[in-house]
């Protein structure tokens, strides 16, 4: 991984998070509970997307581990 790009991403994420940092209290989590706010709420759709890209690009990763292999790449 290129150090400059990784550092730039880290700084961008840290800056964004620190500017918006105000962790919610239990009664403030209504928006966070909405389906659209979940990561990978639709498992089958996420799997299809990840695997189509895996078969079209040089490599894949980041979303999870444990899927095992296939002959598509």
């Amino acid at each position: 991984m290129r150090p400059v790009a990784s550092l730039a991403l880290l700084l961008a994420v840290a800056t964004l998070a620190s500017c918006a940092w105000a962790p919610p209290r239990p009664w403030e989590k209504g928006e966070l509970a909405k389906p659209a706010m979940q990561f990978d709420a639709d498992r089958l759709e996420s799997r299809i997307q990840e695997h189509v890209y895996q078969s079209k690009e040089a490599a894949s990763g980041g979303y999870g581990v444990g899927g095992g292999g296939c002959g598509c790449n």
Partner: protein
Amino acid sequence: MAAALALPGVVPAGAAAQSIPDEGRVELRYLDYRDWQSGADRMRVKSPSFHVMKPFAGTWIAEGGLVYDGMSGASPRFHNTLSGASGEGVRDYRTAGDVKLTRYFDRYAVGVGAAVSSERDYLSRAVSVDFRWWTDDRNTTLAFGFAGSSDRIDPVNEVVVGRKRHTLDFLVGVTQAVNANAILQSNLTVSRGHGYYDDPYKSLDTRPDHRRVVAWLTRWNQSIPAADATLRLAFRVLRDSFGSTSFMTEAQWVQTLPAGFTVTPGLRYLTQSAADFYRDPPFPTGFRPGEPYSADTRLSAFGAFTPSLKIAKSFERGWTADLRVDFHRQRGSWRLGGDGSPGVEPFSARWIQGGVSKSF
């Protein structure tokens, strides 16, 4: 080996998944995929899939899935021994299944899973363990995952027989509720494998027998109550020991509409450099006996855009239905910050998927 559908993964859960779901969920999905180059159809895949998740005994979740891929056509142009041009078109199928069991405790959850995938010329088996721990206020979740897979390759052209590939995957991730309207997830995955990585259906294809892929994915979901919408952002940096580095960014806008509808336009962009041993056309330029070599265009340098559109509707009694269309196009000239690999034809694909789910 041309199969093009998904296997399960240990996916770090969002902040809402720190407690066991109240309801089970069953989903059916159907994928229709095709790709082409310069007006010539290449691969076509039709794939139904199924997934079910059910909580039980108060602290457990069982889930599992099945998928079937039926594919036909030809792989991208150049030097394929199985291709429409050679008269030996690809016709294959894949069946795969997975199961996972998760136990929830007060401040953490532990899951174990297993998966198997079988093609005519490829068999893969995998096991996984994941651990999630969350803070007392449930605003921060740490995820750790470990998986191992063992693959066996028996190509139909018998250029090799019974070759193996073993892979270990590691994940560490954090999910953070940033504020009442934003949630962040950042995952680092490391995949280390050894064994047979050549493509037996591509002439002269010889790749290293070890591979390490490091990927850093960060996602940010931002609720925008004034617009009754959600902005979903993702960015990934990936480094492959084969020599390729890629950057991916994606944005989706989830717009809530009346009558239970949502519409989600999206755009994804990927740019990647070529693998060290990739050689541009004309085939077999750059081939040297005894050295790694591949003309697989997936290992070339290119950029790719994928616009998408999804429409979903929620019905009474826990039913939902959705339809999603993605259009994908790769070009060497779309690579960011420099020229892509020359001589590679633009590649296009589109896939349509429809799903129905029911909570119970």
